[in-house]
């Protein structure tokens, strides 16, 4: 394993532990202290406080918890949709393939961020949701997961389809057809294991991208909304205070940058591991 891959894996493991332990390390990310706004680092607040006097370290940890949970869930959901579409299109071919691939091309051709903004601006009340449920933490997270997954499955779908096309012509698949295995069984037992490694690589690489998209949406006020902390919306606060407290913008951005970098390096390392020849 390359040292960069190892470092990335260790960093992500440390982040995961910190995110899981956040409620015990820093129990109150939403506690206001209006007397100590934008305070410099001290023993009580190791990274200082933000524009409302909240502890920055606590918000970073809780924000990381949210960002990682959102990105992980979204990547898995997108991989699941993409794999299903790709397997179905590749295995059945013909009209199903043509329709699904046109759909994939269509979604891929859309301008991502403007579309996500419109999706994120949809009023849950007009979808018939109770205000109580619409304001819950679970809904806020589920909503962003759903809209990013809705447009994020296309890369995996294409990969899986291409791989399925080549695998389904192999002798062992034809043998399975000959002994009367059902299409579902063939897809899940014989084809899926052979298309898994590119899906793992693509999904790892996509986590970084999803963190970038989520933080951008949260930054614009359309993703995870305050008081719930996320790395993106911490930067929104920092931007409004940029002249009085420029130091606020440093930590959340650095956290996003390092996490995304780690996921990209890990994905690259996995790619080398699974398919050393494909890499120059």
């Amino acid at each position: 394993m390359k040292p960069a891959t190892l470092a990335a894996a260790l960093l992500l493991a440390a982040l995961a532990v910190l995110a899981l332990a956040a409620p015990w390390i820093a129990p109150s990310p939403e506690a206001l202290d209006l007397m100590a706004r934008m305070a410099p680092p001290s023993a009580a607040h190791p990274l200082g406080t933000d524009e409302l006097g909240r502890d920055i370290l606590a918000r970073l940890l809780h924000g990381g918890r949210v960002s990682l949970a959102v990105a992980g869930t979204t990547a898995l959901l997108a991989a699941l949709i993409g794999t299903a579409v790709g397997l179905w299109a590749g295995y059945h071919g013909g009209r199903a393939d043509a329709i699904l691939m046109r759909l994939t091309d269509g979604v891929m051709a859309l301008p991502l961020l403007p579309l996500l903004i419109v999706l994120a601006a949809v009023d849950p009340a007009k979808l018939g949701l109770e205000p109580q449920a619409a304001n819950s933490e679970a809904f806020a997270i589920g909503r962003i997961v759903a809209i990013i997954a809705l447009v994020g499955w296309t890369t995996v779908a294409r990969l899986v389809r291409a791989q399925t096309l080549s695998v389904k012509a192999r002798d062992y698949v034809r043998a399975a057809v000959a002994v009367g295995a059902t299409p579902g069984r063939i897809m899940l037992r014989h084809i899926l294991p052979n298309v898994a490694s590119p899906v793992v690589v693509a999904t790892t690489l996509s986590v970084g991208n999803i963190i970038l998209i989520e933080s951008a949406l949260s930054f614009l006020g359309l993703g995870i909304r305050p008081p719930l902390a996320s790395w993106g919306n911490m930067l929104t606060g920092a931007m409004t205070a940029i002249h009085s407290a420029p130091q606020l913008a440093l930590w959340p951005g650095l956290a996003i940058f390092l996490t995304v970098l780690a996921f990209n390096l890990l994905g690259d390392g996995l790619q080398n591991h699974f398919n050393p020849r494909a890499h120059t």
Partner: protein
Amino acid sequence: MILSRLLQSLAVLLAMSFVVYGLMGLMPGDPIDLMIAADPHLTAEDALRLKALYGLDRPWTERYLRWLGQVAQGEFGYSRLYAKPVWEAMLPALGNTALLMAAALGVALAVALPLGILASLRPGSAFDHAVNLLAFASVSVPTFWVGLMLIVLFAVQLGWLPAGGMETVAAGGGGMGDRLAHMVLPVATLAMAGIGQYVRQMRAAMIGEAGHDYVRTAWAKGCGPARVVLNHQLRNALLPVTTIVALEVGGLFSGALITETVFAWPGMGRLIYESVMGNDFNLALTGLLLATAMTLLGSILADLAYRWLDPRVSLR
């Protein structure tokens, strides 16, 4: 071939307009609610009458078809935020975005292509590793944070450059130098985000070409290194890079949304964002469809460029 691609794009655009029209109806507030909020004298009966007058009591599929008919006649409606016809609000934004994006693309290519070529000459060297890490950093860094950090450094701490806008709003305005000063930070932000992918493409394409017979022939017949690399290898290696750039041109008109918002640059991305947030339905709808159309056009352009540059490839 090109005709079928155009028809396909038109179908995607039509489907997109249907979906987005539906989504607009699901956004908070509707035009009549906004009128009521603006004018307390309106009664409930007035609101109902207005709804009937504007056809808002009809089902949304029917309204969509009517809207489509008007768009087909070139009638895009009126922008609520700008109090102008949609086109008049959009044209300056289009120009501003094109200026910003073209400058950023130029800077990104000017930095990335030489770096990618130099890195490809000695794969595995310390320089190659450094360039690779830079490329990873560039694709991993959040654009809006780069923008904020540049503002903190150059506008807040050093005070060298303006933090946002297109020119100094003062008596007489700023002139050419002032406008250029306003462009530096947003262009640098956008370029930094683009460099990574160009470096990686350029490097991979150069290494891919290096193994070909014609390159070995060129070395064998005694060409100098500069001639082999620049005249032989580079000309072929630029093909895939051109495709990426052509795809990028499609995103030109909405791709800078975040950077434009951070730097208050009055371009298309910011226009779309503000029209969605400000319930300006006509503007948001037209802006989004224009951005989609440009993206689709960019991908057709990429295919055409590829086929023109490399006659061995034919469109599927």
